[in-house]
């Protein structure tokens, strides 16, 4: 079939067919944007500080006397991607149970924050950390030492949770 109707050149008027005025229009728009205020940032040098509602890397809350987590395993159970592994053990503290092993596989994590929602101790929260780069599969499985974050750094997320959870 030979289509002669509704082709691009049929829809253009004479000035548009010339192209030159159109190029000038485009350049005007470009030059105008050059002097407008920027809304991007030069990322690696200039970092973003997300709001408390941001769901970054899940972390464990570290208090003065150790981690809050009692290794109940609910985060592991609720995790839709099976990213969390918890192995409990006994301690002499008041809370008899602590996580001997706590690992989050960041390759599996989908940042849904179900773990944070289900946690009865407010021990696992979503941090503001969004820089997640790993060089091997093994590195992406974060052990307890890498997950523990002092409670002072997580205050605004905990505050946000208390308000909106």
């Amino acid at each position, binding site marked *: 079939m030979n289509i002669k109707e509704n082709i691009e050149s049929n829809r253009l008027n004479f000035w548009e067919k010339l192209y030159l005025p159109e190029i000038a229009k485009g350049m005007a728009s470009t030059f105008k944007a050059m002097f407008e205020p920027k809304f991007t940032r030069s990322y690696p040098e200039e970092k973003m500080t997300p709001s408390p509602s941001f769901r970054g890397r899940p972390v464990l809350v570290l208090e003065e006397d150790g981690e809050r987590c*009692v*290794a*109940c*395993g*609910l985060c*592991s*159970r609720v995790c839709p991607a*099976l990213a969390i*592994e918890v*192995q*409990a*053990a*006994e301690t002499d503290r008041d*809370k*008899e*149970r602590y996580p001997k092993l706590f*690992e989050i*596989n960041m*390759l599996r994590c989908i940042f849904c924050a179900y773990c944070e929602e289900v946690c*009865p*101790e407010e021990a696992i929260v979503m941090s503001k950390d969004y820089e997640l780069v790993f060089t091997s*599969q*093994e590195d992406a*499985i974060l052990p307890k030492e890498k997950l523990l974050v002092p409670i002072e750094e997580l205050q605004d997320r905990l505050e946000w949770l208390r308000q909106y959870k």
Partner: protein
Amino acid sequence: MPQINIDGKIITAEVGKTIIEAAIQNGIHIPHFCWHPELSVAGNCRMCLVEIGMHKKTPSGTFEFTEDGTPVIQWFPKLQIACSTQVSDGMFVRIANSKVTHAQEAVMEFLLINHPLDCPICDEAGECKLQEYAFNHSNGESRFFEQKNHKPKRIEWGPNVIYDAERCISCSRCIRYAKEVAKQDVLTFVNRGDHVTIELFEGTQFDNDYSMNVIEICPVGALTSKDFRFKTRVWEMSFTESICTGCAKGCNTKIGVRNNEILRIQPNTNMYVNRYWLCDHGRLNTFRNVNENRVTHNQIKTDNIQSKVSFEEAKSFAIENIHKYKSSEIMVIGSPYSTNEDLFVLQKFAKTILKTKHLDFIPRIDDKFGDDFLKQKDVTPNTTGARELGIVPIQEGFDTSQLRKAIETNHIKCVIIMNDDLSDQPTLLKSFEELEFLITLSSNHSKLTDIADVTFALSTFAEVDGTFTNIDGRVQHFTPAIVTKENLHRMGMKMSRLDKFGAPNDHWTQKEHRDCKPGWKIITSLANSMGASWHFKTASEVFDEITKQIPSFNGMNYELINKYQGLVLGRANRPDEVLVNYVSHYMKPD
């Protein structure tokens, strides 16, 4: 027999039965904590309150009806407990009206006043009766804002049981169990009111052989197992019904598996064998050899060096050497630890392929182990089966007591031994070193596998489909709980969630799938390579062959055995009645 009406359902119960018993036998669940069918009635939890009424009678003794035919019922002014009220003819019971529900909610609120609600820490969470009822029979609200009572925690009652007084709801099941079933009356309530707690009498320990049953009957997490404590959450395990291998009683068990490792063994109710109980030995010791020290590869010994080989290589090496001996120089030793299927195929192999008369097994009797409850003197699970299937010397063949002499006098030069490590037979084991050729089918490394010329990796009871015949001749079926390379294809849905969905880079599924086979499969393969043509593909096909060949097994099959929780030898056509098994509380969904 009295007829009673529970919420419109008319049921018949024997005279003297309580309402709760009659209800459970008819599949009606009345919430309760302290009642247990094997224990005396305490009536102290008040959870089973129901509304009871009697059909009004006319002065002449007949039942009275209104004009439209509905019965005239005189309801008791107060609620009654179903666990200690006996049924009587014309009784009406309401178990779900608002009055009863309100009472249940009040009881739950009352029980939860001093309960610490430390479910995240508690091992019972997930299979807790209090948790379950808090969902089903509580309005979820508490009016108690004061300080909760604090009581002692982590008290060791004995070598295997730990008591947490805070979680205790004072149902007294453990006290009654210790007194009535375990016959070690060392527990009692002390103090009063909300300070009540359970203590041991001074200078005593709850160190009974059956002490760990209190862990199951405890409706909350007050009693936990020292061995299992904090090992895993219950919902992370898969549960498989199995049979205990600790002695000849054949107690029904439930195996809890996570990461291809047995973590817990619990009793499974079978009213004809172990009722609701299991001994501590069965719980603690029978799974160690499944988890530890396993033979995971077939191996052969050449020039005194053990080397790992494939199954085919091991098989051809074995057959090559078997052919060097006359049939009268070969002895086949079965095992009372093996399944009926393994033993049947082994004796068939000995009789038809090797044509040897020397066939026997070593029974294990321990007089100190037996008692008058569950534990038997015969400490192996399948001695009855081994005898029944003909693991005995044929005519003047050697038995195991003559074996040492026969080896020393060079009458026996080659031995094939299945599933027995002879660790308790040092002199016989010593004489085995003089054998020219030794083939073992072993699940665990031992001195025997060190001296063996060929070792076939054998599956344990937890990895195979099979049957054991207990001391009363009851044939009971069990299925695999643990994944091996060989049974992987049929284990998918049975595995726990974590095991099912693990990927190679996940740290939580690192336990290997062992390369071992059930005994009947190894022997069948050997036989077929030596000229036989046996077509056993599954254990149930072997069992079908047993039922055809051995008269006492006639009429049995796995389906029937499962249906009746075991069939007794020679009585397959007259099975025991199927009962409604009472289950106090368990992991749901299991």
